Structures are given as structure tokens and as C-alpha cells.
């Protein structure tokens, strides 16, 4: 597919009329004029800052413009890696990501397969409803769930009490807070993932299923041997998104709802960066932690892309 498109694009770039030959010199500058706005902005706000953050990670600086930046070599990294706080944040990052998987991949996948023969009006209505959390702002989602889970009069708390359970400090008990934030992060994703899987599942060529059924394959056999392999590009894509961005998605909920507490139980690596940077004003530590996170996620991203190339089954 990609190759065909590349072939279509080539004549456009290669074929030259006499008029364009004369403008050859202009042509070497002209494309860069079109590229300039995007490239300048990306340099200014992404790549130069990335290099600066790398430099800052070797310095001690309290973020005041007048204060000196003192070179400390690898001290920031050594201190950070020895810090229990950092280790806890890395573990929590892992828990957020693992906790998101059922809601961003597993449940949507099975709901999509299970409900595939839904058609007509009902399907349209369900689609419209389960998509809504995706466009709700994270701060709004945080506030909504804070109200529903409120320890005194929240609807969920009252419901649990009716069922004979005690009150649960969803956001105030270190045992539950991380799970609660993971739930809110997943709430925004579950419907959207279901829609993505449904679309991919509906795109499977029905003649394959028909052929398998004629061969006597069971419903589960068809799912295992046909649907899951053919859905693997979507499964891997959503898994990669969850791994790479899951911890970033939960940032807003941590900041609005728990500030990383209680007892640091909800602090993940991105919240730690923010705390070091803008709460304790230690730019060097924040940058060093940022570099560790960036390097870690870059390695994981490369691994995921490799996995996708290696294992995804494409229906050609």
C-alpha cells in the first residue's frame, strides 16, 4: 500500500516542464520556505529544549534567572537512581500502564468481537454514547469522578453502602488511590478502543469466516485462528499507545485529584518530573529524571515498532 502511494507521488516530483528547469535554483530554496514555519517551531519548542534539558541534567540550578547554574556532572543521575522516591515512581508508572491494559485493550477487544453482529439504529446509538468520554476534558473527568466517588455523599459510596460495604477512601487511601486514577484514565479510553476494534473487526473479509465455518470451525476457533491474528495490527497499536502514553494520560488526574499522594502512592515518573521542576525548583533533578524517562520510553517505542513489523498479520 505504501509503495503504491510512493510510486504515485514520484512523477509529481520528477516530471519537469521547461519552465521548471529554468527555476531550478529557486527550487532548492523554495521547498524550505514552505517547511520553515513547522521546522522553526519544532526546533524552538521541541528539539532545542530537548538538548537543553539534556545539558541541564548535568547542572544544579534552582530555576531563578539570576541564580548561577553549577556543573555537577553525573551527580544528579546518581542521586536520583539511589532515591527510593524515584524507584517508587517508576514502579507506579508500571502499575498505571498494566492497570490500563484491561480497559484500553482486553475488554474493548472482546466486547468488539462479542457485539459484532449488532446493526442498525441500536449500533449507531451505542457508538455515539460510548465515544463521549474520549472528548471530555481530563480536568472535567477528574471533577466528575471526584463527585461520584466522594467519601461522604458520592453516589458510588452510597451505592456501596446500600450493598453492605463500608466506605472506601477511593482517593485518600494509599491502597486504592492509584487504582482509582487508573480507572478514570481508562474510563476515557474504553469506548473509543471498542470502536477502533469494531471497525477493524468489521473490516475482516467475511469470505474468510465463511470458508472457516464451512470447514467446520467453531465460533471460538474462528476467533482464535482468524479474528485475533487479523486484529493484531490494532491490538499492537493500542498496546503501544497504552505503554507509551498511559503514564502521560494520567498526569492531569494526579495533579487535579491527589497531587501524587496519599503517601506518594500515585506519583508516577511524569508527576515526579513536574514536582522536581515546579514545586521544589530543582531543574537539574527534573531534567535528569526526564532524560531517564525519555531514554526508557524511546527504547520501548523502538521495541514496539519492531514487534509490530515482526508479528502483526496484515491481510494483503
Amino acid at each position, binding site marked *: 500500500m505504501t509503495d503504491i502511494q510512493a510510486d504515485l507521488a514520484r512523477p509529481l516530483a520528477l516530471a519537469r516542464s521547461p519552465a521548471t528547469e529554468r527555476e531550478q535554483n529557486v527550487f532548492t530554496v523554495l521547498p524550505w520556505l514552505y517547511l520553515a514555519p513547522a521546522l522553526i517551531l519544532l526546533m524552538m519548542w521541541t528539539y532545542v529544549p530537548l538538548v537543553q534539558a539534556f545539558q*541541564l541534567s548535568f547542572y544544579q540550578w534552582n530555576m531563578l534567572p539570576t541564580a548561577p547554574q553549577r556543573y555537577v556532572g553525573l551527580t544528579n543521575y546518581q542521586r536520583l537512581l539511589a532515591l527510593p522516591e524515584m524507584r517508587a515512581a517508576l514502579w507506579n508508572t508500571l502499575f498505571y500502564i498494566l492497570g490500563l491494559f484491561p480497559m484500553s485493550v482486553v475488554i474493548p477487544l472482546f466486547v468488539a468481537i462479542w457485539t459484532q*453482529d449488532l446493526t442498525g439504529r441500536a449500533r449507531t446509538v451505542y457508538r455515539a454514547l460510548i*465515544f463521549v468520554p474520549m472528548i471530555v476534558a481530563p480536568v472535567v473527568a477528574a471533577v466528575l469522578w471526584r463527585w461520584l466517588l*466522594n467519601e461522604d*455523599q458520592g453516589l458510588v459510596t452510597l451505592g456501596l453502602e446500600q450493598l453492605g460495604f463500608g466506605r472506601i477512601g477511593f482517593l485518600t487511601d494509599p491502597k486504592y488511590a492509584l487504582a482509582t486514577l487508573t480507572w478514570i484514565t481508562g474510563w476515557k479510553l474504553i469506548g473509543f478502543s471498542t470502536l477502533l476494534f469494531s471497525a477493524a473487526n468489521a473490516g475482516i473479509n467475511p469470505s474468510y469466516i465463511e470458508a472457516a465455518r464451512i470447514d467446520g470451525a467453531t465460533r471460538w476457533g474462528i476467533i482464535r485462528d482468524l479474528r485475533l491474528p487479523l486484529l493484531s495490527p490494532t491490538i499492537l497499536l493500542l498496546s503501544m499507545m497504552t505503554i507509551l502514553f498511559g503514564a*502521560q494520560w494520567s498526569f492531569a488526574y494526579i495533579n487535579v485529584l491527589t497531587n501524587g499522594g496519599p503517601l506518594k502512592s500515585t506519583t508516577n515518573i511524569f508527576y515526579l518530573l513536574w514536582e522536581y521542576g515546579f514545586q521544589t525548583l530543582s531543574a537539574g533533578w527534573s531534567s535528569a529524571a526526564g532524560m531517564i524517562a525519555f531514554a526508557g*520510553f524511546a527504547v520501548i517505542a523502538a521495541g514496539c515498532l519492531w514487534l509490530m513489523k515482526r508479528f502483526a498479520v496484515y491481510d494483503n
Partner: protein
Amino acid sequence: MTIDVPDNQPPMPLSPNEGTTRRIAVHGIMILLSALSIFPIYWMIVTSLRPENEIFSTLPWPSNPSLENYVFVLTRIPMLQMLVNTTIVATATAALQVLTGLLTAYALVRWRMRLAGLVHGLIALSWLVPFQVTMIPNYVLASRLGLLDTLTGLVVPNAVAAFAILLLYHSMRSFPTEILEAARIDGAKSWRILWQIVTPNMGAPIASLAIIAFISAWNEYFWPLLLSRKPENSVVQIGLQMFMTQEGNLWGPLMAAAALASLPILVIYLILQRHVIESFMKSGIR
């Protein structure tokens, strides 16, 4: 990643017995998932309409609906100003992302440059750099440029987006080359070809991009959190968070503030529902 959305998957033939049980189970799951998705928003609106003395009521509708919570929010914080600010910021961000996206995609499609691979890589990889990693240098830069506590500062760093460029690049590549060739032979300059021939034919991808960019910019929280100082120079997300910190247990007004902060997005969704869903699905998760 593009996912086509066919509507007409033929339903699986089922034996009549299996059919009814299964149909009930299927609808059961979808009703559960729908309720889970929509109920918190419904409860927000119901709570926001309850007068103060009924705020803890568990009736599924407000028995004496009143707008007093909305009035309270509007008098307590500069909510209207914030809504105006957010509209300006989100509109400007969406417009600029479309503009920089069109220029960049056009350059990459039309010319074959020696460094095209590098440019492509720089654009695609920028999507992987977490904002929290570059936030300190970004903050320092914004304060040097005098952008702290301004709306311009909220827009400029988001004026270019990797996904915007890539989305437009992929749709532009399938643009019929004969038309461009004909225009070029007629002596049309690249600038005119872009605006008079390419752009008018890119309506659908531009609309998708504008919808996603507007909604994401409206919901953006982290950069305004760093940049804004005064409520009247800030956006609704920050306003909502400030209101929660100050009046966190006034549930009625808090829900009214949350409803105001999400109202424009919900209205857009009500009007353009199919379009919004498909735009998001075409462009993956972000």
C-alpha cells in the same frame, strides 16, 4: 494509522434459540458500557441543576431545577472571560495547525529533496518527546519571550503538530498528480497551486484535523497550568481546577463549572457527531 469504517457487515447467521439469548447478552453489554460512559456526564448536569438544599439527593432528576449554581460560578470566577479566552486559543491553534500542516505536507509531497527523510523523521519523532521532559526549557523560553500569562503563549508552541502534518501528508499524496502537472504546465506558481487547486480539494481531511485540533486545544491542561497566572488571562480548564481547589465541596457550583467547561465541546459533538467520531478514529488515539 487509518481504519476504514464499513457500516454493512453482514450479520452472522444464528440458530433461532442461540439468537435470542445472544442478542440479549449483546445488548446487555452495550447498554452497560453506554451507561458507564454517559452516566457521569448526566449526573454532572443533574447535580448542577439542583438547588443547594437538595444537592445530596439521589433522585435521578432535579425535582426543582434551578440555575443558581451557574449564577454562583459566573459571579465567583471570571468564567465568561475564560470561555472567550479558550475559544480564541482553541480556534487559533486549530487554524495554525491546519496552516503549518498544509505548507509542510505540500513541500514534502511536491518536491523531492535530499533531506526529505530527515525532515520526515524530525516531524514524526517530535510526537515521541514527552512534554514533561522539555517543560523547563520551554518555560524559560516563554518567559524570555514575554509570553507568560498571555494567550499568544498558549497558542504558539502548539501551532505545529506532527499528527496534523502526517494526516495531511497522507491525504495529499493520493491527490491526482495529473491535475497538478496540468497546472504546472500552465505556468501556475507553487503558491497558487497550493491554495487554488490542492487546498480546495482537501476539505475532508482539513475538517477532520480542525475538529481534533480544536477539541484537543480546548481540553489542554498542562501548558496553561505552567503559563497562566491570573484567572482572567487563563482558560476554562485552569479555571475549573482553581475553582475546585477553592470551593471543592460546593458540589452544585462545581458541577455547573464543569458543565460550562465542557458545554461547547458537547454541543459540537451533538451537531457533528458522526464526523467527530470518524475524525478521531482516522487519526488514532492522539
